[in-house]
């Protein structure tokens, strides 16, 4: 453990949210992003090899110190912490649609799920999982929704690219995210626009 890894450990311990490499680089003057990456690597190894009860996890575009999954049951039994309540099937389906089709309006969500979405959208917004990202040019200029950073935190994802790609699903439908190859990007967007 270098002094920088030590400092980063303290910073991550004190913060209530994941911190990005850029944020961690502001801890000390003249620290480069590469320095932070090296220090994070050292910290991760120290926690793992030292068999600590916590580990360093990359999620939601940043880094966070989390308890190890194997220890969760005992912590919950002792009621030192409460497990995050599960989302309802309706909320999960709505999140799924928003995650893949963002920015997406309420009408499209309702069309896909076949039910009205107002209540679910409000609940997801209040939990900070989705946010309004703009307005459509369509009639009435309806609000468009996208996922918020909290969505990645809740799922422990590094970023939206961690979601299964459309072609990895059993039923493949028109892609709304640009594919990594780039060749199909234009086609995908045209389809999204239509």
């Amino acid at each position, binding site marked *: 453990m270098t002094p920088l890894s030590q400092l980063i450990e303290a910073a991550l311990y004190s913060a209530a949210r994941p911190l990005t490499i850029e944020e961690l680089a502001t801890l000390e003057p003249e620290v480069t992003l590469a320095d932070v990456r090296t220090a994070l690597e050292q910290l991760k190894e120290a926690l793992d090899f030292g068999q600590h009860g916590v580990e360093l996890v990359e999620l939601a575009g940043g880094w966070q110190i989390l308890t190890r999954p194997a220890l969760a049951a005992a912590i919950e039994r002792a009621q030192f912490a409460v497990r995050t309540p599960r989302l309802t*099937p309706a909320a999960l389906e709505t*999140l799924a649609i928003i995650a893949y089709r963002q920015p997406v309006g309420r009408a499209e969500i309702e069309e896909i*799920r*076949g039910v009205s979405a107002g209540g679910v959208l409000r609940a997801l917004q209040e939990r900070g999982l989705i946010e309004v990202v703009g307005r459509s040019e369509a009639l009435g200029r309806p609000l468009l929704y996208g996922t918020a950073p909290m969505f990645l935190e809740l799922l*422990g*994802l590094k970023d939206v690219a961690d979601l299964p790609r459309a072609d990895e699903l059993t039923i493949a439908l028109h892609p709304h995210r640009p594919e990594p190859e780039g060749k199909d990007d234009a086609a995908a967007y045209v389809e999204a626009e239509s």
Partner: protein
Amino acid sequence: MTAAEAPTTALGGEPGFVVQLDQFSGPLDLLLHLLREQQIEIADIPIAKIADQFLSAIHELGLNQAADYLDMASRLVRLKAQMLLPRRTDDDGWEDPRAELVRRLLEYQQIKEVALWLQRQADRRALQYARGYLPPPPELPPPPLELDIAELLAAVERVILAIPTPVLHRVVARPLDVEGATRRIEAMLTDMHELTFRDALGPRPTIVDVLSTLLALLELAKRGMLRIVQDAPFSGLVIRRDSPLATD
């Protein structure tokens, strides 16, 4: 919803057929469930049978969900009718009326697959606690409204207070100057034997002047000081001195 979680139903419309609609997140979910139960291919749905099953499933329905399910029910009934229409076997231009429903079901099934993936991912993440852990905010939606009469009245009070103050027009009683008009008419009659109502009003009369003058004239006429004459209907009033005035 996985097959294990799906409610078991005895299908076919026989008595005792129970589907808990609460367990479905919408009409497409219910439809998928009906198809899965009977191992029906989405691409080849026996519409007549499924429409009947769907209708009996939503027969006892909470009102707040009714609209979403009834919309699907009406689509199914229409499809059922369309499928019954005779068509020529050599008709290449025939489009399967079920195509749109099939597309929606496939799309929805994919969303459900992603939703399941999200659920598993969230479950895994929920096993790890962060420093600075804060309990998540309580689940919405808001509880049903419970009020006692005092709270209701207080709420009404607040609503009334929130109403902007209406613009009030203050109505000012402008005093009629009957005495002044009387003096003016008396003065005029000392110079002239007769005058018109218009003369009596003076230059640029206001509505108050008109009323004051009229009242003064009536009062003077009553006292026998003057006589008001109208030669013809709607002609001008002529005021004549009736009795000699003090100064005359």
